């Protein structure tokens, strides 16, 4: 039965419609794979009862849509009614939401099956899934015969690991600075961060509200298109959700990109970029050219300032969003000493409940928003953000349809390798992805090759706002040309 969990969403959909397989069979196959993959630590709250109930209902449904009966993993950041939702943080220990996020409501409404909740960095703050209260998620990929365990990336590390190891057919992720695209690249899968406002943020634990977007993480581009369709759409409960019609993204996948203009930004050619990444980028460029696209050198002059601007804006918004974790309404409350008042309760609760990285970011955010520094840091960062967005608007106005860049500056690194590094070293993982969040654009990571150790490498395509269909089509053309078929050898 284990072969069933290897199916793509599109394949399972077709098999379900033809009656060749049932959702219960698919779901049981995935649950069995999850049970055997404990060492990957991808699923942190398993929900087999919910899954089988949903699967039975899906099998009974006669007119199910594309996701009817499809078993998925859900990142721990999505509130799921009655099911533990902790954002991988100790401060939300025991929290079981009384409501369902809009994204999961839509997925389940279309018949999708929830296998469980997926590991991630605490509050989505991290690039290696090492800040999680559940412990590290582990990448199913290894460097040849080297026993060292590698990071699946972050923050959606559990999602990437689960999809790459065929524990589920697809997974939800969220992306604030690269948290879908970097883990997708590290695990050899596809992930898209849609345009800001395409997918409702309601019921997703907030990190940085002006940057957060949810998206799918899947085994190929077609599956991302199918899942994104189900996740998208206007939601009155999210005031930044766009009231714009959602086109059929799968129908956009023709593979025809003749005449499309692909921009290659010179600022993404970083000093000290590994030869393998440069070659991957050049190969990807050649593939799109061979497919009939016009390749154009472009400039995005403020690229260098994206990460520093991000590390003002994201912590500032986080410090505000995370103020709600105070031990009053939900989650952890510290044990108090005699005479402790409400301030001590806040301070002790937050010191015990938040991990090191989250504490630091909340405090950095507090600092850049504090009286006397607000203009120098926060307002300046927001001005630089406007310039970064303008860079993209300029190249799109000049006729560029999509931009091709590497997804990450390296392949997956060893868990623990960054333990003693300066935090800024970890932040550099997002150097190619963070610009896209600042500008609110859609970006997709597609596996395009392997490095000398056989580890997957990804390329990123950045599209115009609201044109995920066209972006996914370009990604589809790249996927067809790259023919990435490698899979991790099973060791878990």
């Amino acid at each position, binding site marked *: 039965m284990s072969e069933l969990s290897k199916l793509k969403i599109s394949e399972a959909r077709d098999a379900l419609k033809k009656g060749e397989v049932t959702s219960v069979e698919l779901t049981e196959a995935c649950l069995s794979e999850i049970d055997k993959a404990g060492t990957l630590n991808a699923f942190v709250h398993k929900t087999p009862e919910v899954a089988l109930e949903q699967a039975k209902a899906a099998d009974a449904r006669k007119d199910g849509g594309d996701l009817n009966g499809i078993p998925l993993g859900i990142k721990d950041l999505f509130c799921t009614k009655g099911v533990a939702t902790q954002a991988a943080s100790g401060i939300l220990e025991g929290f079981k939401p*009384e409501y369902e996020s809009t994204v999961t409501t839509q997925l389940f409404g279309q018949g999708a099956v929830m296998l469980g909740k997926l590991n991630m960095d605490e509050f989505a703050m991290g690039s290696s899934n090492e800040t999680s209260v559940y412990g590290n998620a582990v990448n199913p990929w290894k460097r040849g015969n080297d026993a060292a365990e590698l990071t699946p990336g972050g923050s959606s590390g559990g999602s990437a690991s689960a999809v790459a190891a065929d524990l589920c057919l697809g997974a939800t992720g969220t992306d604030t600075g690269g948290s879908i695209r970097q883990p997708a690249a590290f695990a050899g899968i596809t992930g898209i961060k849609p345009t800001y406002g395409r997918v409702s943020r309601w019921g997703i634990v907030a990190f940085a509200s002006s940057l957060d977007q949810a998206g799918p993480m899947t085994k190929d581009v077609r599956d991302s298109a199918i899942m994104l369709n189900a996740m998208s759409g206007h939601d009155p409960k999210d005031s930044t959700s766009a*009231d714009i019609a959602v086109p059929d993204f799968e129908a956009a996948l023709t593979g025809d990109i003749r005449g499309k203009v692909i921009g290659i930004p010179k600022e993404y050619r970083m000093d000290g970029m590994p030869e393998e990444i440069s070659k991957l980028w050049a190969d990807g460029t050649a593939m799109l050219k061979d497919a009939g696209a016009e390749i154009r050198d472009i400039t995005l002059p403020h690229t260098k300032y994206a990460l520093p601007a991000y*590390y003002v804006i994201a912590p500032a918004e986080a410090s505000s969003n995370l103020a709600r974790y105070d031990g*009053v309404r939900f989650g*952890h409350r510290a044990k108090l000493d005699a005479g*402790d008042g409400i301030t*001590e309760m806040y301070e002790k609760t937050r010191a015990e409940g*938040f991990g090191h990285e989250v504490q630091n970011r909340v*405090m950095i955010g507090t600092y850049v928003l504090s009286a006397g520094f607000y203009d120098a840091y926060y307002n*300046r960062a927001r001005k630089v953000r406007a310039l970064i967005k303008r860079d993209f608007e300029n190249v799109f106005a000049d006729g560029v349809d999509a931009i091709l860049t590497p997804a990450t500056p390296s392949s997956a690194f060893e868990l623990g390798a960054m333990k003693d590094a300066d935090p800024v070293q970890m932040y550099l993982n997002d150097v190619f992805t963070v610009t896209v969040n600042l500008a609110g654009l859609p970006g997709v990571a597609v596996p395009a090759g392997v490095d000398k150790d056989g580890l997957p490498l990804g390329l990123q395509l950045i599209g115009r706002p609201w044109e995920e269909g066209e972006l996914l089509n370009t990604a589809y053309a790249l996927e067809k040309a790259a023919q990435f078929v490698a899979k991790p050898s099973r060791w878990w």
Partner: protein
Amino acid sequence: MSIDTETARRVAKLARIQVPEDKLPELADEFSAILGFIEQLNEVDVDGIEPMTSVTPQRLKRRDDVVTDGDQQKAVLKNAPDAREGFFAVPKVVE
């Protein structure tokens, strides 16, 4: 810019996170590293640029100021660490 221990203590207090005295120097060093990285923003000419306030050019949706939901007291209190008589319970706030 270098952050001193006193500033680290003040920021921790503002953020309502208890940081033991002996951890403050380490925290100050970490802040200094991150703020040093952020300082690069001073190289950018931002004269005449408005701070970005909206990711996509849309006016925030509005709705009538009316009650749309209610009678959820049980659900609201369900996850509270301490709830009594239909309220959140906290340590004494006023002496």
